[in-house]
């Protein structure tokens, strides 16, 4: 099931670098030409057929299997079992809180980074992009184990605090806490937020900021009244993406989190592996999937789905 919840993430890893020239016309002053709703069939789109077949075989079919299983293994009672389970309900709230905190942190830390990327010169931008992508290109597992080593009771942080600085006598409890999960998750998910914000910031016409300056706005007021509001669609797009990915995360909470916080991804795994109730696990997965779709549907009303899913694909028109 974990692989299932990771699919959107993997799909988005292709070509994540937004080209420096990829300044789309969104947010500009001129009205966008109305796009045709039903374009004539484009036979070239046939080249997408193998990919479509793969998606159907690897995603749609298993999804149908999961839905069927959730209703028939042994019965739709699976759903009732979930809603009556206090443990599952707690894990839902824990998951929501975790996803919200991680999303907030990603945007808070990611915004200045994206801003620096958008406003620096070519060389600096390349450096910042590569630095961001290095994290992206490293295996999720490796990064998560690295955090384990860093945050362990005998890890780097505690060694420095205890042996070098002598600030504490007992090791500070870092690993197996929500804190460790937040750090690990932010590390994994922040690039999505940064890329969405970067694309949005780059699409802001520099003349609009110049105009504000010329009209007597101090630099910070230019930011507050012009740059920040114009970058909000990027924040929504990046935030939704991070939130949705965080909802279904499994590996990082499993390796860095404590036994007391069971997030939904782990709860699903537990049902299948420990309690041997694949039907209940499947029902949970269906609900998680439905929640993700709901979040996307709501967000799409504000910023357009293409912008959320198009993160890191160098939107060009």
């Amino acid at each position: 099931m974990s692989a299932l919840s990771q699919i959107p993430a993997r799909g988005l890893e292709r070509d994540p670098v937004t080209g420096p020239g990829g300044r789309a016309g969104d947010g500009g002053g001129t009205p966008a030409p109305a796009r045709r709703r039903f374009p004539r069939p484009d036979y070239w789109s046939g080249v997408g057929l193998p990919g479509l077949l793969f998606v159907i075989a690897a995603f749609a079919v298993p999804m149908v299997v999961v839905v069927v299983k959730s209703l028939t293994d042994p019965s739709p009672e699976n759903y009732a079992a979930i809603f009556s389970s206090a443990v599952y309900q707690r894990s839902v709230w824990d998951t929501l809180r975790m996803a919200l905190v991680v999303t907030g942190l990603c945007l808070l830390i990611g915004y200045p980074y994206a801003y620096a990327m958008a406003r620096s010169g070519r060389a600096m931008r390349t450096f910042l992009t590569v630095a961001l992508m290095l994290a992206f290109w490293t295996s999720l597992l490796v990064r998560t184990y690295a955090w384990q080593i860093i945050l362990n009771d005998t890890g780097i942080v505690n060694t420095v605090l205890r042996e070098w600085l002598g600030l504490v006598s007992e090791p500070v409890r870092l690993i197996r806490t929500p804190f460790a999960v937040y750090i690990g998750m932010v590390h994994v998910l922040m690039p999505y937020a940064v890329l969405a914000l970067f694309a949005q910031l780059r699409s802001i016409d520099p003349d609009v900021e110049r105009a504000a300056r010329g009209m007597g706005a101090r630099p910070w007021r230019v930011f507050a009244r012009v740059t920040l509001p114009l970058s909000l669609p990027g924040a929504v797009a990046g935030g939704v993406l991070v939130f949705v990915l965080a909802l279904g995360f499994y590996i990082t909470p499993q390796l860095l989190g404590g036994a007391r916080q069971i997030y939904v991804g782990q709860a699903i795994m537990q049902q299948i592996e420990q309690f041997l109730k694949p039907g209940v696990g499947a029902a949970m997965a269906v609900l998680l999937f439905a929640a993700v779709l709901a979040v996307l549907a709501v967000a799409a009303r504000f910023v357009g789905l293409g912008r959320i899913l198009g993160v890191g694909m160098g939107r060009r028109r």
Partner: protein
Amino acid sequence: MTETETGTAPTGTPPTGIAPRTGSGARVELAGIVKTYGDVRAVDDVSLTVEPGQFLTLLGASGSGKTTLLRIIAGFVEADGGRVVLDGRDISQVPVHRREIGMVFQNYALFPHLSVAANVAFPLEMRRVRRRDRAALVERALEAVQLAGYGRRSPKELSGGQQQRVALARAIVARPPLLLMDEPLGALDRRLREAMQIEIRRLSRELGLTVINVTHDQEEALTMSDRIALLAGGRLVQYGTPEELYGLPNSEVTARFLGESNLFRGPVRHEGSEAVLALPHGRILVPGDARGEGEAVVVVRPSAIRIRPAGTGPSRPAVSEMPGVVSADIYAGDSRKVLVAGADGAELVVRCESGAPLPCAVGDEVVLEWDADSCHIIPGAA
């Protein structure tokens, strides 16, 4: 109080809360402005003065330095040398947001997330005009650009011309002493552009604004300006009224840039009481006092030239002549443009009235003639 009345209002505390102004624009002085990018001198020692209320156009091809110069005046670009003086005050070191200069951008640069009214109110907000005073000022500025009642719309709902008007209203609402415009009409179609030219000119006169406008369009420069500064390669080539630049170009660059022109260059030779250009073909008189020794360039505007068939005599005494072969005859509505391959190899342009019949056809040998005093000499062209 209407827009026009404010222009002559006495210096006092206006009820608006805007810094008191006499209504007239600022005097702008540029002194030795220099800006280099790498090895390129984008602006090369430009000095000029704009009197209050004047409309100056910085004219030049792309890469002439006109936009850089405008950005230096606005404060977006820092000059390497020289001073920008506004009403006697050196503002070279004053940051952009404290220069209080109005600016119109080529792509309008409206705030897409704010309504039209909020866009226009922005400069007032930044200058801490009281909220209840803003609405009236905004409405008056929108009236001035004929967009009364559009305040609640989003800029995205407006046409290009309307957006440009909003940008204009936003630039003038706080009564800046100086209005800068960076190719403000470049994105509009011809008809709209001409209408806006007239409107901008009317507004700037009514408000007594000093305006500095950047364009590469010589027609726009000639129609709108009190003064034109022609720039080429970062240097100020000629500075004067439109009439001076068109009628008395001081260089080949000016003559070529402003309107069509035929240029003849050669050493001046004296023949009795007359001076002519010593050229292998034709006979080009050098009129007036500019008959010093050395080389001279004679500028002849296409409309000053008459065409007559080869082999006939001059229609008047004392005309300049140049033989050639008609290579094209282009009908252009109110006029007719005839291209003639001159005997010296250069292509010459003639403008005739389109009503009158042409005394020749393409391929005919002809003689071009013009009165000696209807040309202009660029002196000292060595």
